[in-house]
């Protein structure tokens, strides 16, 4: 892709200290353990993985909502890794987040008008035509009735609340949005509406997006590229079509085969890769390749040597024995 690079993340790690481990050593949860990627203008990168794989922490760390442990984040040519609170605040107009749970992301004691106008207030922006006008046109844009300006969050359904969160995120015309599981709390029929809305907004405004989700079918629909995470590391990353149709990493393959599809005939005949066990603890991740404890192809090399991301066919894969 020849488009300009908006965001460049290099070797990003985020370790959380854990109090009092059994052997009295300083233990850390390696939530994000060395991820790198570039994000181009107008591009959507899907970040998928199971719970505890570090996808949410990755999203929050990129926005510096938590301080990275090491690595660098370059946003529009500026290295923001070491930026302090004040400098970040002025940047926040350019980088926004949409949260997973539309119930807890909105202050129940504020009206919708107040919630959506908060970005203007914080950034000291005076939109032409006044704040109320701007908020109402935002509401219209995300498919809410502008007359509901004075209502409170409890008067809205889950899907509508997510629209409110989206209106707030796009208020200042950001260049970059992290969408953290924006549709997982919604019903299917509503989920499709919100995905389509995000798709439209992104296209119209040319927003770059990191779309975090555990649902691989949702991610396929919205992403240009997809990164599969496992225990804080990127296992495989590549253009959506390549990753879904010719993935090379055993974990990607297992993940894809585990998603039940609404097609009974193929479901009942399909070969499924059933992984044994659960995600290992990120406090004490397996040595070598972190996936080796659940991988059916694991050999001695996988237990000792950490595989690096290398280009293979259409995707980059971190595996000693790719498919």
């Amino acid at each position, binding site marked *: 892709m020849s488009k300009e690079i908006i965001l460049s993340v290099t070797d990003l790690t985020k370790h959380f200290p854990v109090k009092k481990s059994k052997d009295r050593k300083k233990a850390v949860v390696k939530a994000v353990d060395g991820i790198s990627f570039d994000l181009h203008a107008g591009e959507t990168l899907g970040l998928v993985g199971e719970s505890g794989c570090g996808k949410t922490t990755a999203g929050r760390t990129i926005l510096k909502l938590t301080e990275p442990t090491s690595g660098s984040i370059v946003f529009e040519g500026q290295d923001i890794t070491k930026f302090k609170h004040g400098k970040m605040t002025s940047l926040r107009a350019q980088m926004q987040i949409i949260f997973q749970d539309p119930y807890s992301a909105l202050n129940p004691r504020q009206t919708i008008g107040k919630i959506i106008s908060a970005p203007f207030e914080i950034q000291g922006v005076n939109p032409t035509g006044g704040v109320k006008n701007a908020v109402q046109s935002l509401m219209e844009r995300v498919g809410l009735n502008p007359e509901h300006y004075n209502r409170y969050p409890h008067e809205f359904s889950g899907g509508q609340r997510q629209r409110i969160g989206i209106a707030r995120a796009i208020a200042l015309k950001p260049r970059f949005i992290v969408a953290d599981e924006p549709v997982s709390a919604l019903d299917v029929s509503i989920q499709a509406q919100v995905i389509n809305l995000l798709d439209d907004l992104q296209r119209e405004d040319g927003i770059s997006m990191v779309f975090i989700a555990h649902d691989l079918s949702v991610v396929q629909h919205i992403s240009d590229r997809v990164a599969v995470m496992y225990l804080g590391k990127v296992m495989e990353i590549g253009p959506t079509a390549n990753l*879904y149709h010719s993935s090379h990493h055993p974990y990607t393959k297992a993940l894809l085969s585990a998603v039940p599809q609404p097609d009974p005939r193929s479901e009942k005949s399909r070969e499924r890769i059933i992984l044994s066990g659960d995600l290992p603890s990120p406090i004490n991740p397996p040595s070598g390749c972190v996936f080796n404890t659940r991988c059916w192809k694991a050999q001695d090399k996988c237990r000792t040597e950490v595989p690096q991301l290398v280009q293979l066919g259409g995707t980059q894969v971190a595996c000693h024995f790719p498919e």
Partner: protein
Amino acid sequence: MSELLRINDLHVAFPTDDGLVRAVDGVSLTVSQGETVAIVGESGSGKTVTSLSVMGLHKKGTAEISGSISVAHDGGFLDVITASEEEIRSMRGRSVAMIFQDPMSALHPYYKIGDQLAEAYLVHNPGKKKEAAARAVEMLDLVGISEPAQRAKEFPHQFSGGMRQRVMIAMALMNSPKMLIADEPTTALDVTVQAQILTLLASLQKEFNMGILLITHDLGVVAQVSEKVNVMYAGRIVEQGGVDDIFYNPMQPYTLGLLKSVPRISATGSERLKAIPGQPPSLISLPAGCAFAPRCEYIKFADSNACATQMPALVGTSAGHTSRCHIDESKRQASFAEAMKEVR
């Protein structure tokens, strides 16, 4: 195949300060030995309320229940709605057991896993403590927990989410029930763990020839494990049929809308999703006619007056495949067949 559960014209309503919430409005379905019957619907469609009614878990006085729920119990049938609390208690867990959605809150954090399992057995076999403890270990082994004797002495927080759901299944099987109600059994789990649990349920069902009533919102899960499907919308079953009927030949616009709006991992990649416009109605003020009419894009093929004023009856075209819709059959067939081409 003998029938294990017969629900006939079940109505459940909850009086609230804002008015009567009609959570379930005339649901009828049956579950037989060895088969999996799914109830699929969005939040608030009444699927969980239906399953709680079967277990007799609505408090007397808070819910207005009518209709009949017959559960195969002790060689005969027990009507849960008219039965005494004592009769229901003897049925619960022994004839029909239930697995809940959230394994974190369904287990008591202070008690050892083994003791919680044993309790389920002791309710029906008072005093047989040793037998209960042995059975607990046996069931943990059956659901694929390694070193079951050791693990029985541990507490819920020492188990992962998937392991806890296995414990819930083990607990449901303590009294060898003939029927299992699984209410969103894999919703709280990751896909790879979900695949493990669904495989486990299928193999247990085969082994014990159980009937399963599966409550879920996930059409993919329905497609994978069930034989019969009930699609619920606003408290009513809007379409009922075999799994192939529902997924390849839907007769009701809501079912079709769901199939069109669910994202699939597809060969063609990221085409735009076809969302159903609008949102489900409030259960306090349901539309007089078809509850889906305000969102229905096929209303042009029907007498829109009928859609707005009369609730369509659940009628069938082929054996065992019924739906609620006013649309003229000939017009429906052509337009639905066209729409189904877009699916997949």
